[in-house]
């Protein structure tokens, strides 16, 4: 068991979510940066979809009740284990009674703390993820939360650390495919979306990131009957400021989606903190598939 002594702005338990329940209004949820969750799990020998802690903007302190093996990935926060500085993306051996503290990451937003054996809270609809929109899954983690750890998997950690390419400084460039409702927008909206920078606003959470930037005027102003929404959708409400949907996005929405961020790039979007500038670059549907393949192979490389 590990015991939480302190948290930062938000810490939740996350795995790969509960897909397949959209018909009854349940979002997939799961880790906002799935690649980082999977990497943390692989480092400690877990199944890649085991439940771990998603730590938003550092600030977490936990105490191990027995010897355990941890890995911390994602936003590269400073890590302190009872006075020792430890690296991210590495296998950490922690003794019973030791405290692990995550500082504020200098870049990125969400760090993942995996423990060998996985966090064994009770699953809900097949997942241990906290869905902040619908309130499904375990309570958000707070001071005093005691998290059970599952039995160790058969596999042992294969490597001590994994090299992870740092996100380049400067604007975050995200590939998008226009549509499904790009035709509801003026030509000027499409050129603004692809030509001008947007800034991640403080009004952002696991549901979505509200973006500040140029207005995206519509040519069709009638009401859109609610329709299904995918991860990475850029939905534009009447204010004209788009919301980029993340893991806990609503299953359906009533505002048009001008473009969708390619699946393999949503992890990078989920690491953009308020104030970060984003530029969108259009790729065709074929390009989206290509981007996915290259991301899949680079993920293999680092695991």
């Amino acid at each position, binding site marked *: 068991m590990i015991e939480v002594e302190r948290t930062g702005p938000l810490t939740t338990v996350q795995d790969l979510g509960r*897909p*397949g*329940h*959209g*018909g*009854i*209004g*349940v979002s*997939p949820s799961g880790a906002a940066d799935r690649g980082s969750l999977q990497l943390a799990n692989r480092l400690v020998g877990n199944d890649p979809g085991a439940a771990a802690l998603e730590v938003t903007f550092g600030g977490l302190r936990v105490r191990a009740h027995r010897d355990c093996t941890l890995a911390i990935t994602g936003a590269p926060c400073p890590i302190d284990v009872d006075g020792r500085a430890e690296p991210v993306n590495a296998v950490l051996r922690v003794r019973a009674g030791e405290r692990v503290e995550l500082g504020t990451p200098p870049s990125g937003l969400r760090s993942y703390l995996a423990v060998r054996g996985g966090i064994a809270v009770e699953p*809900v*609809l097949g997942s241990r993820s906290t869905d902040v929109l*619908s309130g*499904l899954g375990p309570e958000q983690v707070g001071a005093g939360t005691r998290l059970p750890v599952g039995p160790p998997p058969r596999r042992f950690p294969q490597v001590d650390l994994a090299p992870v390419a740092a996100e380049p400084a400067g604007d975050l460039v995200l590939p*998008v*495919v226009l*549509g*499904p*409702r790009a035709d509801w927008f003026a030509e000027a909206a499409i050129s603004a979306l692809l030509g001008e920078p947007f800034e991640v606003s403080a009004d952002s959470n696991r549901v979505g990131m509200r973006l500040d930037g140029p207005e995206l005027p519509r040519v069709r102003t009638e009401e859109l*009957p*609610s*329709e*299904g*929404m*995918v*991860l*990475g*959708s850029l939905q534009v409400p009447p204010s004209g400021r788009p919301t980029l949907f993340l893991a806990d996005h*609503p*299953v*359906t929405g009533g505002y048009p*989606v001008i*473009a*969708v*961020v*390619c*699946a*393999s790039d949503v992890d990078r979007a989920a690491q953009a903190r308020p104030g970060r500038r984003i530029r969108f670059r259009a790729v065709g*549907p074929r390009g*989206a*598939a290509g*981007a*996915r393949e290259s991301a*899949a192979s680079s993920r293999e490389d680092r695991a």
Partner: protein
Amino acid sequence: MRCADSGLLVELDSLREVQGLHGALADDPPAGVADLVPAARTLLLQLEPGADPAAVERAVRDVSAGSAQPRDGGLLRVPVVYDGEDLAAVAELTGLTEREVVDAHTSAQWTVAFGGFAPGFGYLTGDAPQLTVPRRAESRTRVPAGAVGLAGEFSGIYPRESPGGWQLIGRTDLEIWRLDRDPPALLRPGVRVRFEEAR
């Protein structure tokens, strides 16, 4: 319509066609489809990572939505006490008496068209066009679990206490959403619903 490499949004002419296509695909979805999300005029196919959107699109085009039958999810009887706060307002809006509103609601054959809004919530459509009413001008911040309401052409039951803007005509003790039950939602697309007056 593509949603990048994450989904395929199929737009149809009517809710009936949506239900038909959903019925045709639900039991044996094309390879690479992770989930189906029906809505008023669309069916979203959520794709698994690595799925080929073009292949899924071909598979969907091979299904003739017009001839497909809506899925029959069985019949659910819902006992309702018709004492909702908006019953009088609904009577006024529809030009019916409160008694006639209740009779229309209990005699219509309702079907869950799609979910959304909250886990376990189902948008019910039925053969009761006389009950079409707008949402309330102002949403309530708290609607209790089990509240039965009307909005637009739809009827619905609030699965949990939540904010809401539907016109409330009654309440049911039936727990339509329970996580310790499999399936947790009683109102799944295709389920037929009959409201029965309880006292």
